[in-house]
Structures are given as structure tokens and as C-alpha cells.
């Protein structure tokens, strides 16, 4: 602080002090070269990408480049306006995206290499050197994201296959679906609750309605609620999200209506506990230990609470059926539950339970997608093993056109 104060004191009044300081300083770094500005690709407009070749003193030479400042001015027929700093990049970087441009305005850029120089007082001062200005650049938006062409092709193939098989199925073609033990066990699990005169708890995951797994869980709840209504079993749905509570109420109500027992439904069957992950786990564990339900369903997205819930249910000897697409939680459910729907089985449940041809058709389309991916993996394995290609997307120069890793890269 002392040194900069000293410079500030001498600089304005005593101009002779400045050359003295300059003489004491080591030379500034060489400027960045080859500075270019162009519209940032694949965006909605409003940004320009500035690239440059690093200063010869950045990481080499005098090694005194600390960072770069990126300066921008609006170009006009009478010459460029004033340059303002729009951002900075640390040494070693050669690219900056200015995300605050207005489309259609001509901009020019300068890259300033900064070096930290010791001053007489000890606190370093920054010296800078500017590059040549760039040519004029405009920003604008693109109508297609070229780096996502591969994703579009895959989306068209997979969705096309799904739609094709849905069409086939609605025209009456028989479709095979393999057995899913966990779903076949629903009737038995609900029946057991009726026999024992105990409750059924249904946990539709711990995430909100924007999670597809929650929707899948609620779909299965519809079926469970219908069976529970038919068997006159007592169902409770403690949830951890308000929106999920509202949705589950609708689904359970409808299920009871369809089962011909609307009078047996009341809103208190579905209730909210808390959004907090472990608060919710504690709440469910408490309910399980007090009420000793005979059957527990865990269907939806779960995190670390999965085993805390399932192990507590296991300790009271309840039948437990779980289903989740959270890979990390699957081993816990498999260890502690009687049946577990693994990943995609959770999403296939609605088709499996309703046997609706349209839904079954979508599963068939999904299988085709899987076949394509398997084929790609096989081809990749064979070709990589023979050294024909590289999956390393960072090494484009060495492998040239043989690098098919990038075909599968979506940005």
C-alpha cells in the first residue's frame, strides 16, 4: 500500500518522477499477436469470440505475462471509439468470449498483455502492452447448433423408431414384454397388507415433479392404489414435495374411483412431511417403526436416504418393492428389498402394468435405440483394438479423419 501511495503522490505533480520509475523497471512483455474477433458460433447472439496467439513472454521468453485484458471499442466510419475493458484472462489462455455485445454493432478488440513489475516500495505495479486491433466483428444468433447435429440424428432415429413401433402396436401387432418380477408382486404385496390388517406405505421418491422418475413412480402409484382399493387395504403416501402431494392425491383419488370405492378415499392418505432429505428420511423411519406397515414401495428418484429407508423397512420384516434409476442407489435397494426395478424397468412399468399397445410399442422403439448403441460400441471396440481409430477427442492432429470419438461428442 505504501509504495502505490508513494507513486500516486509523486506522479501527478512531479513529472520527472515518471521517467525515473520507468528506467528502474524491467522491459514490458511483448504483446499478444494474431488477435482475431469473430461471432461466437452456435449461440443465440450477443457474444463475440476473441482469440490470440500468446505473447512470446507468456510462459516462455521473459515469462513475465501475468494476465491479459480484453478491450473493446465500437467501430464507426470516423474511426474507433474509446476502448473499454470487457474482461480478462489469466496467462496461458488464448481465448475470451465477450458475452455482452449487441447484435449488428461493429466491434473491434485489443488484447493487452499485463505484467507485474516490482516498484521501489515493494508492492508491484502493473505495466501493460497492447496488441494490434482486430478487424471489425459483429455478433449474431445461429439457427442451428452445428455441434449438435449428431445428437439430432440420434434423436430422429430413436424417436422415429419409438413412434414407428407405437404405430405398429396400435394397428394390432402382438408385442412381447419380458417378465418384471417386482411388478408381478404388487398384487401379492398389497394382499398381504389386507390379510395382516396393516398399512401400505408408498414413497414416490424424494424429488420434485420435474424429475421423470417421480412421474414414473406416480404412474405405478395409480396401479397400487387401485389394487389397494379393491383389496380394501389401507394406503398411505407420505411425500417430500408439495407438488408431488397434489399430484398423488389426484392419482389416488382417481384410482379409488376406478375401483368403485370413491368413498374410501380421503385427502389425508397423501400428506407432506418435509423437503429436507434427511428430515424426510427421519420422518418415514419414525412412521415405519410406529405403524409397522406390512408393505413398502419405494418408486422414484432417491439419494443417500435410500438405504436408511429400506433398511428400516427390512428390520420390521415388511415386504419391500423398490424401483429407481439412480445407479448409485440400486445396490442398496437390491440388498435391502425383496424386489427392485432396475433403471429402465421403472420407466417400463406403466407399459407393463397397463399392457396398452401404444406404451408397449415405445419400449420396442427404445430397444432399437439400444441395439444401435450396442452396435456402435462393438464397432468402436474392434476398431480401437486394431488401432484404426482413436476415441481420444483431444488429439485431432495426430489422427486426422480417423478420430470418430468426436462423432459422438455433443456440446
Amino acid at each position: 500500500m505504501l509504495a502505490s501511495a508513494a507513486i500516486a503522490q509523486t506522479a501527478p505533480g512531479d513529472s520527472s518522477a515518471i521517467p525515473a520509475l520507468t528506467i528502474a523497471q524491467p522491459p514490458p512483455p511483448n504483446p499478444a499477436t494474431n488477435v482475431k474477433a469473430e461471432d461466437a458460433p452456435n449461440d443465440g447472439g450477443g457474444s463475440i469470440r476473441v482469440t490470440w496467439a500468446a505473447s512470446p513472454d507468456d510462459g516462455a521468453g521473459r515469462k513475465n505475462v501475468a494476465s491479459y485484458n480484453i478491450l473493446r471499442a465500437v467501430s464507426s466510419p470516423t474511426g474507433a471509439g474509446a476502448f473499454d475493458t470487457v474482461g480478462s484472462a489469466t496467462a496461458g489462455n488464448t481465448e475470451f468470449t465477450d458475452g455482452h455485445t449487441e447484435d449488428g454493432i461493429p466491434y473491434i478488440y485489443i488484447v493487452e498483455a499485463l505484467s507485474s513489475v516490482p516498484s521501489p516500495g515493494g508492492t508491484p505495479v502493473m505495466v501493460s502492452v497492447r496488441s494490434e486491433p482486430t478487424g471489425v466483428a459483429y455478433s449474431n444468433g445461429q439457427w442451428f447448433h452445428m455441434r449438435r447435429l449428431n445428437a439430432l440424428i440420434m434423436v430422429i432415429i430413436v424417436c422415429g423408431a419409438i413412434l414407428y413401433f407405437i404405430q405398429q402396436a396400435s394397428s394390432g401387432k402382438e408385442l412381447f414384454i419380458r417378465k418384471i418380477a417386482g411388478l408381478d408382486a404388487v398384487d401379492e404385496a398389497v394382499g398381504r397388507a389386507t390379510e395382516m390388517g396393516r398399512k401400505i406405505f408408498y414413497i414416490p421418491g424424494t424429488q420434485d415433479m420435474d424429475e421423470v422418475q417421480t412421474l414414473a413412480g406416480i404412474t405405478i402409484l395409480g396401479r397400487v392404489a387401485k389394487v389397494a382399493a379393491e383389496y380394501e387395504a389401507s394406503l398411505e403416501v407420505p411425500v417430500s414435495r408439495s407438488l408431488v402431494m397434489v399430484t398423488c392425491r389426484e392419482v389416488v383419488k382417481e384410482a379409488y374411483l376406478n375401483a368403485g370405492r370413491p368413498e374410501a378415499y380421503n385427502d389425508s392418505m397423501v400428506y407432506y412431511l418435509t423437503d429436507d432429505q434427511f428430515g424426510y428420511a427421519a420422518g418415514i423411519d419414525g412412521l415405519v417403526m410406529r405403524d409397522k406397515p406390512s408393505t413398502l414401495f419405494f418408486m422414484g428418484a432417491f439419494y443417500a436416504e435410500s438405504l436408511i429407508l429400506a433398511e428400516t423397512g427390512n428390520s420390521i420384516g415388511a415386504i419391500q418393492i423398490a424401483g429407481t434409476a439412480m445407479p448409485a442407489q440400486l445396490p442398496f435397494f437390491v440388498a435391502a428389498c425383496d424386489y427392485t426395478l432396475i433403471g429402465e424397468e421403472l420407466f417400463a412399468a406403466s407399459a407393463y402394468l397397463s399392457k396398452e399397445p401404444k406404451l408397449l410399442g415405445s419400449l420396442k422403439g427404445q430397444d432399437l435405440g439400444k441395439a444401435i448403441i450396442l452396435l456402435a460400441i462393438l464397432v468402436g471396440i474392434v476398431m480401437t483394438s486394431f488401432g484404426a481409430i482413436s476415441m481420444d477427442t483431444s488429439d485431432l492432429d495426430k489422427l486426422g479423419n480417423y478420430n470418430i470419438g468426436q462423432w459422438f461428442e455433443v456440446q
Partner: protein
Amino acid sequence: MRREIPTAIAFFVGIICIIQFFIPHRPFGTLVDVFSDWFGIVAAFAIWLGALNLLKVSLERSLSKKKTHDRWYGLVVAASFFLIFIIGMFMSGGDQFQVPGSRFDYLYVNIYTPLSSTMFALLAFFVASASYRAFRARSWEATLLLIAAFFVMLGRAPVGDQLTGFMPEGYRLSEVANWIMTYPQVAGQRAIMIGIALGVASASLRLILGLERSYLGGE
């Protein structure tokens, strides 16, 4: 109409979300942000539904004539709710409530933190009891799993290397555990993830096209 309108909204928003992934140009690129904001707003208001439901259920329990423990639990929930709500809203310096040293921060550090940590810590115990039950050599596959678990459990704790320190580098337990985690484990994980990704795509397509409407209370 109760089902047609939500289905139409799901179709419209779903299609826009897919389109925006490929078309960065305005207005598509920013529409998803708008939809996310809307979801956030709806979900934020819905918290009141949940909170009021929680209060209703808890108060009903605590006022119930049935002499069970539930009465006391209900009372504890309602009392804690009001305590945190009042202290957070009115006694912690308005929007500075999260700043270290505020009353809300005190409750957070001294009540919420230890309670949550306790629940999470239960996992260590439950993992132990579940492993004891699940890892039995009942079949060929189960035996493989058991052996893998043995290596990983020992290899992931320093004791593994102390036991196998005499082995040449590359064969010590931690390295065996790392190998299991990096190759067979990742391969299995990826397979499940690919299956899930396709499952999500197919389920989302059914939802967007309105083929799957059971979440709206229909068949």
C-alpha cells in the same frame, strides 16, 4: 378439459425444450430459462400447500383424543415449525438471516446441522447390517460380488495396503480395488446409464405426446 389442457401444456413445453437444444437463436435459446423460472415460481408457492398440510396433520395429531405417542410427535413438529419460522422471519435481521452470527444461523449450526448429520451417519450402520445380510455366497454371481466387495472394502481403507505392502506395486489391495472400481464397475455403471437414458427418452416422449397420462389421474 381437466386432462386435455395439461396434456397440451406438456406437449407445447416439451417440444420447445427439444427444439431449443438445436436452435440457439432467440427466442428459443432463452425460453427454457423462462420455463424453469415458471416452474420455480409454481413450486415456491406450492411450498405453502405442503407446509400448511404438515401443520394441519401435526396439529390434528396432537389434538387427537387417541392417547398415543403421535400426539407428542405432532406437537414437537408444530412447535419446531413455528420456532424456526418466527426466528428466521422476524428475529434474524431480515434478508441477512444467513449471515454467520444471526439467530437463524445459530439454530442452523447447532440444531439442524447435528440432526441432519446424525441421520446421514446412520448410513454407516445400515450399510454394515445390509452388507452382513446381502453378501452371502448363495450363487456363482453372489460369490463374485462377495469377492469384489472384499477387495474394495479392504482396498478403500489404508489397512488394505498395510496388509499387502510386501506385494509388488500394482498388486496391492488399493490398486486391485481401484482396478475393480475403474473397469468392471464403470462398465456396469455405463450399461445401466445407457439403459436409463433410453428409458428416460422413451418415457419423456410418451409424456410429451400425451400417450402417458396416468400422472394426471387417468388410465
